[in-house]
């Protein structure tokens, strides 16, 4: 029997979806290794502890709550020191983070300060004897590497969306914890959190991603993509590198080898030819739809459903049809 620690990522006083995924993954790990406890570490401004219930439902037995007026924003050194101190005192077999922007920043700091190795961006894992065996997409998604991580604790990051949050129907005990480092002494300080805001569905969280390429011809035509996304209701808008390089869309929405990697239930590629660098960012999507006027475009080799045609004709019709389908369901 082994206890597991999950880092519950929050932003702007709200839990991120990956927090629930991480806790649920830790729950699966605990259950598979004899039914130990799952402890979730939740750090934020005063009041963040109110989110403990949701972490209990995702599988946490204990929520370790660190509330501090100066920790409303991610503070890497304080978060890392606090997580490392908790791992040292808690005796965990596994320590789980999301492979989100924050988790990828935080987990290696924690592992290195504990003097242990870690595995990254796993899409699946299991404990086998003294090792953790995990699956890690490498080489821009063209290779699946099965990794073996030895040593205790096993520190890992989990690819967002790969291990889904489950409803464990537990009620977590809340345990207040002090930060292990005075936030006032942090050398690295986040002075501003800006950008597209929390209300908008992020590419990583959206069940549907609609992405546009050069075929849209100009920035203003992305209105078609916004309308299609709105019709789905649960969609985010992505873009190819050519488009973000030209400044038509924000660089943070670039999907591909050097941008975001997404794995939604449905990916709709519009006016995208399917360069290998783009495919690297979306090839693990569950269902892929492509709309392109060139029937020989590489995207059609990957698309479950391809429509050859003028996107300016097809997309508005699709938007109306999606609206109608959703209204009827």
């Amino acid at each position: 029997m082994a206890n597991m620690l999950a880092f519950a990522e929050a932003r702007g006083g709200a839990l991120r979806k990956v927090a629930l995924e991480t806790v649920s993954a830790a729950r699966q790990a605990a259950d598979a290794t004899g039914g130990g406890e799952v402890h979730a570490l939740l750090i934020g401004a005063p009041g963040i502890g109110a989110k403990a219930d949701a972490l209990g439902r995702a599988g946490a037995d204990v929520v370790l709550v660190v509330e501090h007026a100066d920790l409303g924003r991610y503070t890497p050194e304080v978060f890392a020191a606090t997580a490392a101190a908790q791992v040292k005192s808690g005796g965990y077999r596994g320590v789980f983070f999301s492979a989100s922007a924050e988790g990828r920043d935080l987990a290696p700091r924690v592992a290195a300060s504990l003097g242990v190795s870690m595995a990254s961006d796993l899409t699946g894992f299991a404990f086998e004897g003294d090792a953790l065996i995990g699956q890690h997409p490498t080489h821009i998604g063209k290779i699946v590497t099965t990794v073996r991580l030895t040593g205790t604790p096993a520190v890992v990051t989990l690819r967002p969306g790969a291990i889904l949050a489950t409803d464990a129907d537990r009620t977590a005990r809340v345990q207040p914890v002090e930060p292990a480092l005075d936030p006032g002494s942090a050398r690295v300080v986040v002075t501003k959190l800006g950008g597209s805001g929390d209300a908008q569905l992020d590419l990583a969280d959206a069940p549907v991603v609609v992405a546009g390429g050069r075929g849209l011809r100009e920035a203003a035509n992305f209105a078609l993509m916004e309308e299609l996304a709105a019709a789905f209701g649960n969609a985010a808008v992505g873009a190819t590198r050519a488009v973000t390089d030209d400044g038509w869309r924000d660089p943070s929405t670039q999907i591909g080898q050097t941008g975001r990697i997404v794995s939604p239930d449905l990916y709709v590629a519009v006016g995208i030819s399917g360069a290998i660098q783009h495919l690297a960012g979306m090839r693990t999507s569950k269902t892929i739809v492509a709309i392109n006027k060139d029937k020989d475009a590489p995207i059609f080799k990957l698309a479950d459903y391809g429509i050859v045609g003028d996107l300016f004709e097809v997309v508005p019709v699709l938007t109306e049809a999606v609206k109608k389908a959703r209204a009827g369901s």
Partner: protein
Amino acid sequence: MKIAVCIKRVPDMDLRFAIGADGKALDPAGLKYDIADFDGYAVEAGLRLVESHGSGEVVVVSVGPTAVQETLRKALGMGAHRAIQLDAEVVPFDGMAIAAALAAELKEGGYDLVLFGRMATDSANQTVGPMTAQLMGVPCVTAISKLDIADGRGIAERQLEGAVETVEFPLPAVVTIDEGLGRPRLPSLKGIMAAKKKPLEVKPAQLGAANLTVDVIALPPDRPPGRIIGEGADAVPELIRLLQTEAKVL
């Protein structure tokens, strides 16, 4: 300003990959190698910082066998001043093992900044930079897309999912580079000639223990072959039907 840039030699990702005989590495036949994508951006960032500060030195560092000298020479051709190869027959998969070697080399080097690409395109662990920082005991900011250095302090921007963080930190520091700071320059002919004469020092890599290893590698499962379901707007009703009844995503 003294800047170290840690770079990795990786296979060209555009090529078709095959699995090697031992099942743990790519079949080397037909592979071509280059500096990892983000590491190229890191070299560019280092060069621009030294150029804008009017003085300083960019030292490129790579862990690996003799073959990494080719990658180091390319960075020298871009304009880096000297290179250090931390000689190791094989580059471990474990970021912690690599970080130990880099921290041992860089800790007493007097660097104002140590730059990394945010992630190597092959192993994709994204751990070596922050682990090296932790072992060196210096501040670290990862995956930045904007960087300003003035008066011994840095201000950087990091892209999060749907947001941007502004981060401030003192030097010396470790910074890992996303895109956004400027595309890597190509080595000029003059640069390539000059690179041949620039110092390239070879030292044994003091690697840490490798506790993260590769069991096996595989090509991802094939997707079913693509299917074109129709042409033009007339195909939309069929698409909706398939999304509802077959893919069950609508």
